[in-house]
């Protein structure tokens, strides 16, 4: 992707817009950090008139000032948080494991039903739409993933994962710190699909939370939108205060979102119904438009299966994995060659108890699974240590955490996002290399 002319015209226009030099919040914040007076910062912002605001995509000159149309927008990290504690032992299944069969007489996925994984594991058959990606080396997994949080509490475990630290001294989200490490970028450099900001993105870096591009809009409809934007722009122009920076970025994002939303767009793949697929469709659109998306966070809930994980062909797990796999397969197809520039990783707060419970479900456990999709992987295999399921190696009845989730993410950040020093992102962790990426 060296030349904007290879892209359809609207995307090329967006990229040109992205390449335009401007000043913005990142400069402003940077200036505060270094103790410059606001006055000087605002002098820079003063150049942004109402008209020019409409087409600004870039928050700072640093990212795109020199690059122009040929700018490489960089690899995109997509984090899918599977809320509720996904049962890793149903997704990536240890083959020929007698302990599992004993512990789970009703819900263990039988060997004969598994899709080929690697020499130790098979894949739940519901992952069939993704199996070609697995085989082609564009998908991998890490099993027995643990975190320092041993509480078996949804909230506490999610919080620990999303802050990227167990210590309460780390309050920003780990993805916010990733953004800080990546440096300034475009308005679209960080997107969360949803109505609320995920904990992982909480912090000082700018990011957009969108349900759909079409919905990132001022309430009140078309009638007075332009005039409202003009009034808001006037109300926040020349104001010597951080709220002015937030307002400017919001107005810029509104304009950019509308510019994209106005364009005719057809995904290349047929996405299934459902919010999760819709979120992936939005992300694919942004990735293909090459508007500088570096970090995206989306959620898929419903994995808290205390009841009725069910047998392999009939139960909550089957239903959820069907939905999950169909959506991800469409996302991969839609991206086409751009999948090489994407790394998608799933996280979940914990795995589930090895032994099934009285309701053909499983209660909260510990060690879980992370799935990875995209370019740069040593794919088609399950990485990391595997402690097994023998009763004497279980952690209070749960799969032990043999691989720290931060080890997966550190390698991802280093290999795929070019972040050399992960210490600021996972400040209380000393990483071990797992070899998930090439």
């Amino acid at each position, binding site marked *: 992707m060296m030349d904007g002319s290879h892209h359809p015209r609207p995307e090329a226009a967006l990229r040109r817009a992205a390449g335009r030099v401007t000043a913005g919040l990142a400069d402003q914040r940077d200036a505060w950090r270094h103790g410059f007076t606001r006055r000087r910062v605002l002098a820079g912002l003063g150049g942004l008139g109402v008209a020019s605001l409409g087409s600004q995509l870039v928050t700072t000159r640093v990212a795109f000032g020199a690059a122009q149309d040929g700018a490489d927008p960089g690899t995109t990290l997509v984090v899918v948080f599977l809320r509720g504690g996904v049962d890793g032992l149903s997704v990536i299944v240890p083959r020929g494991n007698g302990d599992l069969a004993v512990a789970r007489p009703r819900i263990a996925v039988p060997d004969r039903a598994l899709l080929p994984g690697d020499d130790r594991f098979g894949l739940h058959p519901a992952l069939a739409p993704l199996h070609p990606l697995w085989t082609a080396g564009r998908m991998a997994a890490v099993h027995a993933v643990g975190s320092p949080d041993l509480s078996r509490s949804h909230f506490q475990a999610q919080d620990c994962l999303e802050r990227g630290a167990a210590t*309460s001294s780390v309050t920003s989200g780990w993805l916010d710190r990733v953004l800080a490490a990546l440096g300034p970028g475009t308005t679209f450099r960080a997107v969360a699909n949803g109505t*609320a900001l995920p904990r992982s993105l909480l912090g000082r870096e700018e990011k957009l939370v969108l349900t759909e591009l079409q919905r990132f809009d001022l309430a009140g409809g078309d009638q007075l939108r332009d005039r*409202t934007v003009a009034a808001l722009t006037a109300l926040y122009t020349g104001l010597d205060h951080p709220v002015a920076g937030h307002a400017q970025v919001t107005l810029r994002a509104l304009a950019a979102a509308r510019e994209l939303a106005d364009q005719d767009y057809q995904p290349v793949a047929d996405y299934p119904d459902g919010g999760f697929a819709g979120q992936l469709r939005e992300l694919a659109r942004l990735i293909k438009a090459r508007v500088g998306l570096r970090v995206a966070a989306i959620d898929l809930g419903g994995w808290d299966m205390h009841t009725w994980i069910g047998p392999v062909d009939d139960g909550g797990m089957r239903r959820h994995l069907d939905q999950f796999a169909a959506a991800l397969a469409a996302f991969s197809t839609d991206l086409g060659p751009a999948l090489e520039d994407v790394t998608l990783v799933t996280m979940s707060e914990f795995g589930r108890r090895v032994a099934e419970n009285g309701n053909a479900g499983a209660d909260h456990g510990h060690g879980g699974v992370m799935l990875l999709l995209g370019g740069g992987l040593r794919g088609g295999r399950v990485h990391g240590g595997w402690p097994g399921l023998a009763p004497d190696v279980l952690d209070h009845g749960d799969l032990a955490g043999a691989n720290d989730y931060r080890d997966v993410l550190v390698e991802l950040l280093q290999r795929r996002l070019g972040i050399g020093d992960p*210490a600021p992102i996972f400040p209380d962790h000393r990483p071990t290399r797992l070899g998930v990426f090439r």
Partner: protein
Amino acid sequence: MAVHRRAGVLTTHRRQVLLGLGAGAVAVGALGSAYAALGGSGLRPALSGGPTSPRDAGGFADRDASYGHALGEAADLGAAGQADSPEAAARAAAGATPTRPTPLARDPVAHLLRRASFGPTGSDHQQVESLGLSGWLDRQLAPGSIDDPVAEAVLDQLPTARMSAAQIRAELEPNSWDAMFELGQATLARQFWSRRQLFEVMVDFWSNHLHVTCPFGGAWATRTGYDRDVIRAHALGRFRDLLHASARHPAMLRYLNNDRSHRRSVNENYGRELLELHTVGVAGGYTERDVRDSAYLMTGRTVDAADEFVYDPERHWIDPVRVLGFRHPNPTRPGGLAASDEYLDYLAHHPATATRIARKLAVRFVTDHPPPGLVDRLAAAYLDHDTAVVPVLRTLFSSLEFWISVGRKTRRPLENLAATVRTLGITPGPDTPAGLAGLYWLSHRLGQAPLAWGPPDGYPDVAAAWGGAHGTLGIWNSHHALANGWSDGLSYPAPESLVGPPPATAGDYLDTLSRRLLFQPVQERHRTALLELVDAGPDTPTGEAGLDRAARHLVPVLLDSAYHALR
């Protein structure tokens, strides 16, 4: 404050050293704080060398201090010092020039209401004018003297709001979250409509300082009582009593795992947060050994099967303990409760606790990066009055720093929502619980549902921790929804009714509306832009400008402005 600054210097120095040494060194350097993480998994010995103090591990005194420092704000506000009364302080500050300009008018009445309430209303403004600054503050500092019919009537519609834990257990399904949700609704109702506004601000302050997240499964029956019997009972009392009450409440003991702590398997979560968050803070200079002894001393405080606090001597660890300057022989199991009460007294009266609470109050009421001189004076008032908070607040409201700081705070999402409800005059309506539920979820989408911050450190109180496009757009759109009464349940005044009898010209209409909603006129260029929004000039006759119809656009945009975003 000296301790504070010394810690800051040390931090910078350490960071530089560690950066030079690379990632491995940073990981080791961070062990002091990494350690805090392991609260839930029991005690661990120091990893190497002697006991270390988190103060020396690299970091700010607390999160909000870190944010405040990161912005590099000048601590000089333009005026400093104490006066004999709020009026004298306001007069003295009015004669000085703030170091930072603000779009907010330097009107002492509006300033006081922006800080000491969840947002000015017209009637509050009149009340301050008639009672005077001191008179209004005196009343607010004696909330029992203020009738509160509107908030009380709403509470009557939230059945669990006045229930004890035993009643909630009797009335609701086990582990129901209904009572906790109703507490969220009740919190909103009181912030919106209670006439004891300064009391509610302090309830919010202490709820975040001694935070027990809500909802939290372990407190499904007890969170309501924690709000009433701990926070509200002592919000304008002595911190010593507040701390003691929290240390005997099942919600807190569950939240920080002290209920499971046992002399044979000590859980240090509560013992640590007691030091780090509730009292002396990281700047207190405690070590890992102190944390361990703090946890040992608190063993025995647990929760029984009926969700009541109980001291179980069998769980209590004995033998001498030492935390900072506190010593106790701690010789018997039955004596453990009294020993730990002495320890709580020690912590409540510790100078580092005074400084920490003083600084947090200054952040709440004055500015995100408060001047050390103000913090020192507030801390002295705290110590001079046996940890009573009212004298600290009186000191604060008689400081020049308070009165010069107009516009230096940014409303957090929930503060913006509450101020919007209050200035628009939205009141209880045909189905108030449903209306409050809708606004609860709105606050949730904005990222600040009442009491819902997850970690034990409470919601950030500084602007740098908030903001961003999502939040900004979300707040703008909430103004539109609230101004136009898009949700059911409450009583929403029609936007065209806000000005009263319509003034003759569009310019006058806008000025009247600005004073009604923002308590000041807007600057001339903003006036021009707002008139352009409704396609009118200043002299266009009101009828011709169609302002009755256009009010539904004009009202939210006025609230979108910095005049409403700041406080």
